[in-house]
């Protein structure tokens, strides 16, 4: 694996993008978009996390094993959220004792 060395300037650009996104997420908070507020806030947070993972943590230039491992964390997280929510929000659907 030949190693990629990004320039200092490249990291500064990523940092600037992260700061702009932070400003955006604060600004959007003071606008009333209804339920979209949460969607926008989470969209920005995911974008920021992606920038950090891909470039600050070098995943963009990493080998496949690392990429698969990183993706695995998201899959496990979706299992955790998905099955827990499916449980809690389906309890009311059944009129049975022990809900």
């Amino acid at each position, binding site marked *: *694996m030949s*190693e990629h*060395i*990004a320039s*200092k300037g490249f*990291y*500064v650009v*990523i*940092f600037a993008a*992260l*700061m702009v996104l*932070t400003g955006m*997420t*604060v600004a959007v*908070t*003071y*606008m*009333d*978009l209804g339920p979209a*507020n949460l969607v926008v*806030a*989470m969209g*920005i*947070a995911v974008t*920021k*996390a992606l920038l*950090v*993972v891909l*470039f*600050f*943590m*070098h995943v963009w230039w*990493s*080998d496949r*094993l*690392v990429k698969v*491992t*990183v993706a*695995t*964390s*998201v899959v*496990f*997280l979706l299992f*955790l*959220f998905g099955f*827990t*929510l499916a449980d*809690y929000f389906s309890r009311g659907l059944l009129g049975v004792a022990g809900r």
Partner: protein
Amino acid sequence: MPNGHAAPHPSLQHHFDTLEQQKDASTFGMWVFLVTEVLFFGGMFMAYILYRTWYPDAWMAASHHLDVVLGAANTAVLILSSLTMALAVNQGQLGRRNGQVIFLIATMVLGAVFLGVKVVEYSDKFAHQLVPGPNFRFEDASVARQAQIFFSLYFAMTGMHAVHMIIGEGIMLYLLVRAWKGHFTAQYYTPVEIGGLYWHFVDIVWIFLFPLLYLVGHH
């Protein structure tokens, strides 16, 4: 081994063939650990999602007690520390000792600023009786119990995050001492690389904590 004549690099452990193989194994191991960390924090985020869905009004009222300015400032401080960490790794790749030392110190200072702001915020919560327990007081009694759940999660999540920051400061100190002694070269800087992975992960946790705790319902 390529041949019997060249002495192995002093940082190469005997159970690896090459420094490259050693670095790949270390990086993979760190990422596997970080996957478990994602799930560790994931459990608390799961609790957050459920209670926020059940008690949206209490969530909004309780979130108003967090200082958006301090939270946003701390977000900026932490992102800046991620930049200095990335630059410390960059200086490791290039084998520049002075650059490693400078950027590791900068990262530690920024981490300390973050923790200092956290101390100010926590003491403010104690002063205003917003710490869950017998002394918890909330202006709107109808949602007081639910607001207490918000603050329980606030302290659990930011508290565990702060513990990770403190451990991170310890890792930075270890890296700083080794960088100072000139242990890291362009051929071998793996500890800086995987120490950086840990630091960036902790930054990512905060990237989600900030909007979820501080920015609920200011609109």
